[in-house]
């Protein structure tokens, strides 16, 4: 091959590369469009949301719609409710999973493997199937329309126990042995050795639990009967029943409800990718 044809081939390869990147960038922009449409409609008047023909951008940008939506509807309250529920579930899940995960990973007791199999088996049970009996249990405990009623039934999943067990198993036993010779109790070892070393796994469990609860819809919808106790996703649907739907405020509310997830996804993209890659590596085995 002559130098000139080599250079031509390199140029063609570079051009193809640029085209390839550009085409996917176009697809990605198209994919992001609903986000754009949401924000674009959040900052216009309601008349303009419904105006025909449709305009891509508002004629007047009403940026204070976010503030208005926040104050004219109890969005602040919805936000707080969602936060309390998601944070509480996450806290309980992490503590309970650390304790049980440690027992499964490091302690000997009769029936351990059988119990672990049982825990894994419950992961197969679809959530919707349990909704009705869970509601009846909450009802008989007098917890309908209370925070503990939303929080407790979802805080004891078995996934966390299994995830943390797997991670704890990868921590060398020698670290623990040394502490035990010094007379440290098991709880002490868990809190001051295992947990600090397991922050990646605990962070992952916290992240996914928090986001799942922040986005959860059906369970809070059923338990929280009063509008003042509604979470953000449930609060958004409350506007649908009003005679004149304030679409611009709903879009502002939807934007606000998506913000935490979007920020976390961008900030923690490496952690998320690694965790999903772990799944990919195991290939479901």
């Amino acid at each position, binding site marked *: 091959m002559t130098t000139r044809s080599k250079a031509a081939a390199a140029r063609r390869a570079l051009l193809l590369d640029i085209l390839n990147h550009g085409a996917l960038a176009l697809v990605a922009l198209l994919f992001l469009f609903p986000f754009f449409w949401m924000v674009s409609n959040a900052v216009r008047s309601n008349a303009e949301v419904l105006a025909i023909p449709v305009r891509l951008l508002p004629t007047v940008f009403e940026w204070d719609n976010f503030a208005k939506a926040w104050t004219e509807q109890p969005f602040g309250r919805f936000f707080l409710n969602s936060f309390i529920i998601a944070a509480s579930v996450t806290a309980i899940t992490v503590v309970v999973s650390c304790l049980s995960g440690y027992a499964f990973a490091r302690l000997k007791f009769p029936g351990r493997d059988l119990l672990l199999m049982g825990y894994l088996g419950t992961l197969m049970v679809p959530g919707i*199937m349990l909704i009705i009996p869970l509601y009846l249990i909450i009802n008989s405990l007098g917890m309908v329309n209370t925070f503990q009623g939303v929080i407790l039934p979802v805080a004891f999943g078995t996934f966390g126990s299994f995830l943390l067990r797997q991670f704890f198993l990868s921590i060398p036993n020698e670290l623990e042995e040394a502490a035990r010779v010094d007379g440290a109790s098991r709880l002490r070892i868990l809190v001051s050795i295992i947990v600090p070393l397991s922050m990646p796994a605990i962070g992952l469990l916290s992240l996914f639990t928090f986001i799942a609860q922040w986005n959860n819809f059906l369970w809070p919808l059923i338990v929280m009967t009063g509008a003042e106790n509604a979470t953000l996703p449930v609060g958004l649907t409350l506007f649908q029943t009003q005679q004149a739907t304030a679409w611009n405020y709903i879009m502002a509310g939807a934007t606000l409800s998506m913000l935490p997830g979007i920020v976390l996804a961008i900030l923690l993209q490496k952690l998320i990718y690694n965790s999903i890659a772990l799944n990919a590596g195991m290939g479901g085995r």
Partner: protein
Amino acid sequence: MTIAQETAAETAPAATTRRRSRLDAREGRTAFFFLLPSLIGVTLFLVLPIVASIVLSFTNWKLLGKPQFVGVANYVRLFTADPQFWTILRNTLFFTAEYLVLNIVISVGLAVWISSLKVGQRWFRVIFFLPTFTPTIAVAIVWMLMFAPGGLFETVMRALSWSVPGVLTDQTLAMQAVVVVSLWAGVGYNTVLFNAALDMVPASYLEAARIDGATAWDRFWKIRLPLISPTLFFGTVMTAITSLQVFDQIYVMTRGGPGSATATLGYAVYQKGFQNFQMGYASSIAWVMFALIMALTAMQFWLQRKWVHYDN
């Protein structure tokens, strides 16, 4: 060997065994206390509901009054008398089939495309992943505005000189709209999953194939696809399980309508249970859903022998 020596030889192991078992007992006690919070929660909020759900499905409980045991009457009513049930079942299977196939095809396509890039892989992954971290309800509301009469979707379609009636009020288009929204919201997770699996395919395999003259198409079908097939299988099973339970987007966008064109099993459980308070009947629908999930999962495990390659 003297008697003294003999007894010493006998008691020494006995003593260690005793100490060992005392240690084991203490470990067992510790394990019990460590497991206690989890065990209480799992028993009360997972095991008990599973059992209660089976029992309820054989009663006619309507939340008020006493539940009466009615045997398999709920199931008989489902399959023979309920005029809606077959529609709901067909809708659920239709949604699952269409959504599952499109999700896997699109996410594999995007994953391969992203992995062909030299720069910016990370950012493309984040972009396609974003909707999976946002509330489905908010997502569905935004799409509902786009599908509204005279809204963006109709405007774009008219510009392409294809006039569509109100999408969400049309018997056939409404379900397609639900599929589109679900795809937008759900395709990102599988894209990142498959992209991660593709990243793990050793570059040396692909290089060797390239030197042997394999085309890009061959390299995809004969090397990359078989090597990521365990992950592909995992993604397919998980996606099938979640899509059989579809609820949120239907609740917001169509409430099962028009007619019962988009009513699915998940929606029926909610409607019968929490709007009509037929707790027993709704529980039997939930068990039909569970049976479907089990059957579909079993079928996928059976089919995997034909297409999933494990390298060990």
